[in-house]
């Protein structure tokens, strides 16, 4: 890729950018407020929603900033009255079919409506058929969908499994899992990336349907399901984890997650979690005990074995799922307190 600089004129000012920059990125770098809906930084430019139109001298009509690369010498206006009028009208068109979703995710249309001061649309199209699906992760509120195709493109470009499609045309056009099947019966890998890329909240996490995302607290931490170390935000409400999200541009994952990272958090609050120490009694069964009892029993057991058979008759197995601090103190316990180097972990890779 060439890193040649090219110059063009944006809103009356000369601007220098690297060849290959889109008009949208150039506008953003200058702080110009170009609205977007179908654009997503992780996806290839699409140019379908037409919210980002800008005026380009010599072009027969405005061009989508997201889909147009800067060329040397271009003269571009990013915010004339007529542009704002056209953008506002297109936003109004969206409102004629969009109905806010019930999933609890944020909705970009709120911001759009505010910016263009939209009232009731001049026409309201009928509701779409609802999509019922037995999968437990991904919910889809068809009436909120604006056909920006972000989910479809995510599935195609990023996951490359093509489990979603933009199907039909005209008034019958819809977004749906391939052939209208259940998410469980397509090539879908349940990563939920479509949810993360959906601007309207039409796609949402079923496990937390209705919980307003904006009302949740978030804690940034790291996923534990593999060695990639995706940075995640645990969304909590009333002291419970209710969903997992990931912010674009952050961590090794750049906002992407897999199905485990995004959805398999229920174990955290599962009934099977151990909540009391257990000590094996005379009867051979495990019984609840206090921490003091449990600690005493551990100390006693380890001391006895050490006294009778020596420190090297005790082994420690560390978990590669615990934190560095946890496993550091475990080996320190083995080495400095018990006096053995018998400490290892399960998988050597």
């Amino acid at each position, binding site marked *: 890729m060439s890193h040649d600089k090219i110059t063009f004129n944006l809103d009356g000012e000369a601007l220098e950018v690297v060849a290959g920059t889109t008009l949208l990125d150039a506008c953003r770098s200058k702080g110009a407020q170009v609205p977007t809906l179908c654009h997503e930084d992780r996806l290839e430019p699409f140019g379908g929603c037409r919210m980002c139109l800008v005026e380009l001298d010599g072009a027969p009509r405005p061009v989508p900033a997201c889909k147009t690369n800067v060329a040397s010498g271009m003269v571009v206006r990013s915010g004339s009255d007529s542009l704002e009028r056209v953008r506002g009208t297109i936003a109004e068109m969206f409102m004629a079919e969009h109905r806010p979703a019930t999933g609890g995710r944020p909705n970009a249309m709120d911001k759009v409506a505010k910016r263009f001061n939209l009232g009731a649309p001049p026409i309201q199209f009928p509701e779409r058929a609802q999509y019922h699906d037995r999968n437990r992760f991904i919910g889809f509120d068809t009436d909120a969908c604006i056909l920006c195709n972000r989910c479809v493109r995510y599935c195609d470009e990023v996951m490359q499994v093509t489990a979603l499609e933009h199907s039909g045309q005209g008034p019958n056009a819809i977004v749906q899992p391939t052939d209208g099947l259940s998410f469980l019966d397509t090539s879908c890998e349940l990563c939920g990336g479509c949810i993360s890329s959906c601007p309207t909240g039409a796609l949402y996490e079923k496990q937390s349907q209705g919980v307003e995302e904006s009302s949740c607290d978030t804690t940034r931490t790291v996923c*534990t*399901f593999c060695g990639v170390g995706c940075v995640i935000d645990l969304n909590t409400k009333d002291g419970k984890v209710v969903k997992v999200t990931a912010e674009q541009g952050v961590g090794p994952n750049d906002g992407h997650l897999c199905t485990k990272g995004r959805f*398999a958090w229920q174990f955290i609050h599962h009934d099977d979690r151990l909540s009391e120490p257990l000590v094996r009694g005379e009867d051979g069964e495990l019984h609840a005990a206090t921490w003091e009892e449990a600690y005493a029993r551990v100390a006693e057991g380890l001391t006895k074995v050490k006294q009778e058979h020596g420190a*090297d008759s005790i082994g420690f197995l560390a978990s*590669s799922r615990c934190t560095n601090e946890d496993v550091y103190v475990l080996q320190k316990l083995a*080495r400095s307190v018990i006096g053995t180097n018998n400490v290892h972990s399960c998988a050597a890779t």
Partner: protein
Amino acid sequence: MTNSIAEIEDADCLFVIGSNTTEAHPVLALRMKKAMRRGAKLIVADPRRTWLAQHADIHLQLKPGTDIPLVNAMAHVILDEGLQAQDYINNLTENYDAFAQAVAEWPPERAAEVCGVNADDIRDAARAYATTDRSGIYYTLGITEHVCGVDNVRTLSNLALATGHLGREAVGVNPLRGQNNVQGCNDMGNNPLYLPGYQLVGEDENRARFEQAWGTPLSAVPGLRLDQMMDRMHTGELRAFYVMGEDPLVSEPNLAHVEEGFEKVDFVVCQDIFLNETSRRYADVVLPATCFAEKDGTFTNSERRVQRVRKAVDAPGNARPDLEIIIEVAKRLGAEWAPAEPQVIWDEVADLMPKFYGIRYDRIEETGLQWPCPDRDHPGSKFLHEGAPIRGKGLFYGVDHVPPWEEPDEEYPFLLTTGRTLYHYNAATQTARSAGLVDKQGSNFIEIAPADARDLGVLDGAAVQVESRRGKVDALAVVTDRLSPGVMWMPMHFAAARANVLTGDGRDSEVGTPEYKVTAVRLATHGH
């Protein structure tokens, strides 16, 4: 990993061997997919036609356990056609001759026979890897979980050294870590031979540093590896076992042997978030710990990045953080340690480990840092071996084929290999508690090639019993052309049908990693 995850998308050639990346490391695989979309060449060596294999330019569908002949043959082609990086070899490596001799034995035709792949494909793969400037190697357990795991890795590093494909952005040798903190667990010295920070326990000056910091004398006697511990349980030499967050009864191979060992142990402590097989049956004390969402600390990911883990919710009932539990145990045993503050502990770690010295909590609030990071202004290391291999000269090894510990025979005619699926994680203690995942993939299955299924009269979806010399498990048959005849594949996740009932005692002779990847089995149908 020698490289960073983000660099993968800039690679122009990806050689993925023994890694079903899209299932085991799905998010990392997205970077590979991005590179592919950009036009990067993809070479996949895997006994299964995985997603990546399906989309690869070259798929080398080798027989399990024949990685060394394959990679040696690739090296053979590289030397034969003069594609090696002679300057790099001359200046920055040693022991080249042993390597050259070893690979001379493996012309592609010979390897093709052993591996069951096409010789020309080996040639093409070698050429693509050697002649593309930004070439990277990626591997996982498919390489290491063999009797010759270490040798497998060596052949790959030979390949990188011979082509000078090391020490640049998107160019290197990258093991992808299976569990979230395998890297950190090793870094922290949970190893019988190494003190934290890979400092050999046998060397006096290393011990001295820790003895001073910890205020106690330390044993110079190397400890036991996990597999050795299992053996010593048998012989009665290991009498107490402290298990943190693991379930050896499910995860260790040759289960019957492990069970017998546990029967003989005097005292077992298990510290975990769920009751598991081991604790249910053998623990004397079970200590309820907290999960990642309930504690502060750090994890180190595959790319050596130390990242912050933060507490979001309270632990259930009386469960306590592992850190606190261990410190309390130490106290009961007479040691007075710093309070259970993760940050205090981490500072102790960083002070003792030169490569981590510069990594401190205040620097990793926003973004983690990649070690080595020797001082507080160091930006961290995106990739390793820049300019030259870290040890000064890259060491070539002459490696020859080591056949698997067990090979199919008349009685057990099929070769079973195991792996991960996308929808579960290890023993599935966490994922099996997600109803949505169980919907998608709920029970054990075994993949069978269509030809084998036909010969055995097994239909897709039939209940079968898989038997090895050591045990049997139930599974549903999935007939698929992802596999070549003679090879079967089973996931490792399902507790009710533990694949490790079947696996054998084969282990890498140097590090003891079990050979999960090759087992001889036979199949019985359950009637219909």
